């Protein structure tokens, strides 16, 4: 660089007006430097007021989205507590299939023909249909039991809410009528029982007792 330097030219340049930054400017810069050194990661230009609302808006948007998503999932999700009773009901229907009378409700609830790979949506619909059918079946059973109870016990004024007669006890009572020779009463009760419990699978021994086909001892 020495070959480029011209002493006379440099001297002229040095003779120009001496320029120095004013003290106030020095203080501003040094203050900024000190502030930055004290908070190493803080930006010198803080986010302006007109940008701060972005943070609040973003937080609100996230919150609304989270709530909407949760509600959506809650609405579409099957009731987890409906699972086990539903399975129990299906097991019960498996036994009832052997009953002499056809059961409309379980057939209605029978799953649609299986597809090679059922989608979650299809499963969901099947579960809902089964659930509805089960509810209908339970309602009709309760009504039938209540009606049968009224017929058997003569308590016509008994409310539907009264506990229906237990089918086993009812059958035992019919068998008792049969054994006492009250066949007309036994037949009437048996008809009422079958109306009330069309799907009840009668064990062979009990069937013989209530129908009077058992061999006399």
């Amino acid at each position, binding site marked *: *660089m020495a070959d*480029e330097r011209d002493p006379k030219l440099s001297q002229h340049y040095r003779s120009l007006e001496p*320029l120095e*930054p*004013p003290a106030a400017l*020095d203080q501003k810069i040094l203050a900024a430097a000190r502030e*930055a*050194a004290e908070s190493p990661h803080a930006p010198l230009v803080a986010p302006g007021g007109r940008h701060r609302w972005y943070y609040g808006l973003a937080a609100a948007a996230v919150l609304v989205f989270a709530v909407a998503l949760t509600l959506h999932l809650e609405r579409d999700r099957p009731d987890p507590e409906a699972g086990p009773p539903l399975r129990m009901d299906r097991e019960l229907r498996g036994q009832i299939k052997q009953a002499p009378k056809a059961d409309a409700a379980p057939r209605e609830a029978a799953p649609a023909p299986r597809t090679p790979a059922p989608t979650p949506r299809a499963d969901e619909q099947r579960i809902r249909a089964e659930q509805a059918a089960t509810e209908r079946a339970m309602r009709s059973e309760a009504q039938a039991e209540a009606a049968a109870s009224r017929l058997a016990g003569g308590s016509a004024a008994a409310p539907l809410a009264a506990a229906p007669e237990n089918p086993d006890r009812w059958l035992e009572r019919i068998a008792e009528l049969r054994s006492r020779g009250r066949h007309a009463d036994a037949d009437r009760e048996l008809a009422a029982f079958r109306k009330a419990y069309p799907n009840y699978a009668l064990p062979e021994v009990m069937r013989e007792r209530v129908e009077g086909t058992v061999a006399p001892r």
Partner: protein
Amino acid sequence: MEAPDEELMAAYRDGDAAAFETLYARHRARLYRFVLRSVKSRPLGEELFQEIWLRVIEARGRYSPQARFTTWLYTIAHNHLVDHWRKRGLTLVALEGDEIAGASPDPADQAQARQSLERFAAALQALPALQREAFLLHEESELSLAEIAAATGTNEEAAKSRLRYAMAKLKAAMNDG
């Protein structure tokens, strides 16, 4: 023995505010003259001078002691001036030619430039921007040609050419009287 600039800048980067004060004291006047004589306006020059130092402060985390501090400082200054000119729609073309970038010397200034120093000052202001920048860097920063080239984003030959053009015009202005 005084600590080198690079050591001071590294210390400031690591949180030593006093190191920056020393560094600032060493370079403030030269950088101030470089900026003010580049823009020809004291208020604007002071604003740019402050902004350049704020950029230095903000960029401290990226400073690597392998780079010479002076080169780094004047690179920041050069880039900031280029940004400033771009914002004003000015470009730094006609670097090697004789065209005058920016306003011509005021006729009143020319009339007053009877004395050698005044002619010199007027000629300096009349230089194309990058020729003036090369000369100012040469005089104020004491950077080598290679360092001037690095700071201004060009090659050494171009930097040398700019400097020679500038010096030739300034000599001519001095000897004109």
